[in-house]
């Protein structure tokens, strides 16, 4: 099998285990859109125009609370700031045309970034040549389709039932990414000291701040702490 030609498929394959959480998130977002008394076209348009789950939820909540426009925009931009780092982290890995980069940038969500980085890490030392941009586009494309379809489905489900109303959103977020954190801990023994320190820091920060601010500050502090405790491995061909 020519892995380079099949990397769109490989990207979709890597995204597949994440799909259950994406589907549930999409359904809950659609349900939330309905219960917020917003029309379907508005709710579904958020999923393909913004295409960023956490900011979509935040914007939806702020709209229903009649917050000023500038506050909604500011909050939405703030929660998406982490995407700047994703682009920077993948800059050297994606050697593609500008047109393809535009598509990759549009599809660069948390999940697409994670599977791309995971694919790169898993492939280190292997003889298989992977096209990481194709992996990102393949996985991101599948995510886009799933997210948009389930948003619409969730809206219609919201009209007819309330079975998801009792499941806390916090639980879904934690459950979704718990598996990946365990995998990261297991597959990166050199990073464990860094991960442990960030866990302590995140736990401490959680007493003071929450939501988007906690996410943002954890990333910033993590970057600073990384200077002391993060083991940078030099990969052949990946020059500093």
């Amino acid at each position, binding site marked *: 099998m020519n892995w380079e030609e099949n990397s769109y498929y490989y990207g979709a394959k890597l995204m*597949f285990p994440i799909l*259950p959480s994406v589907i*549930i998130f999409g359904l809950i977002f659609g349900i939330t859109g309905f219960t917020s008394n917003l029309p379907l076209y508005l709710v579904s*348009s*958020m999923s393909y*125009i*913004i*295409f*960023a789950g956490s*900011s979509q939820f935040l*914007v939806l909540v702020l709209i229903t609370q009649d917050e000023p426009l500038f506050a909604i*925009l500011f909050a*939405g931009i703030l929660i998406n*700031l*982490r*995407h*700047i*780092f994703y*682009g*920077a*982290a993948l*800059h050297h890995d994606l050697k593609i045309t500008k047109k393809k*980069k535009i598509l*990759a*940038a*549009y599809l*660069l969500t948390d999940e697409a970034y*994670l599977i791309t980085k995971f694919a790169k890490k898993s492939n280190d030392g292997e003889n298989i040549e992977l096209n990481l941009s194709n992996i990102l586009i393949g996985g991101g494309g599948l995510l886009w389709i799933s997210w948009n379809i389930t948003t619409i489905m969730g809206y219609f489900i919201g009209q007819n039932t309330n079975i998801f109303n*009792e*499941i806390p959103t*916090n*639980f879904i977020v*934690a*459950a*979704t*990414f*718990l*598996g*990946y954190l*365990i*995998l*990261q801990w*297991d597959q990166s023994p050199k990073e464990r000291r860094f*991960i442990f320190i960030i*866990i302590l820091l*995140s*736990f401490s920060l*959680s*007493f003071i701040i*929450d939501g988007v601010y*906690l*996410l943002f500050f*954890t*990333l910033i502090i*993590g*970057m600073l*702490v*990384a*200077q002391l405790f*993060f083991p940078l491995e030099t990969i052949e061909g990946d020059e500093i």
Partner: protein
Amino acid sequence: MFVILGLSTFLMRATFLFHFPTRLNNENIRKALESVPSSLLVALVIPYTFFVETSISIFRIEVLILVASVPVINYFRKPGLSLVLTLTALMLINQFYK
């Protein structure tokens, strides 16, 4: 508003994807960037598991389920299993103890 937000999101994703200034290509910057996945995962798991807003709340069935699922997920090494397993457990417990 959605268009502005969507455009800003796209620009944030695309900025450094298209052009990464050479002066940023050093060991410190790379360390910072490589730390993002682990930090992101921790930020999405720890506070959402043990806290409700800024109050610690560990005596909940959700916390018990998440903590109990760790050895199971570690054994199977399937990250996608975490949501399916824990959600199923939560819905079953809610159903039987309602």
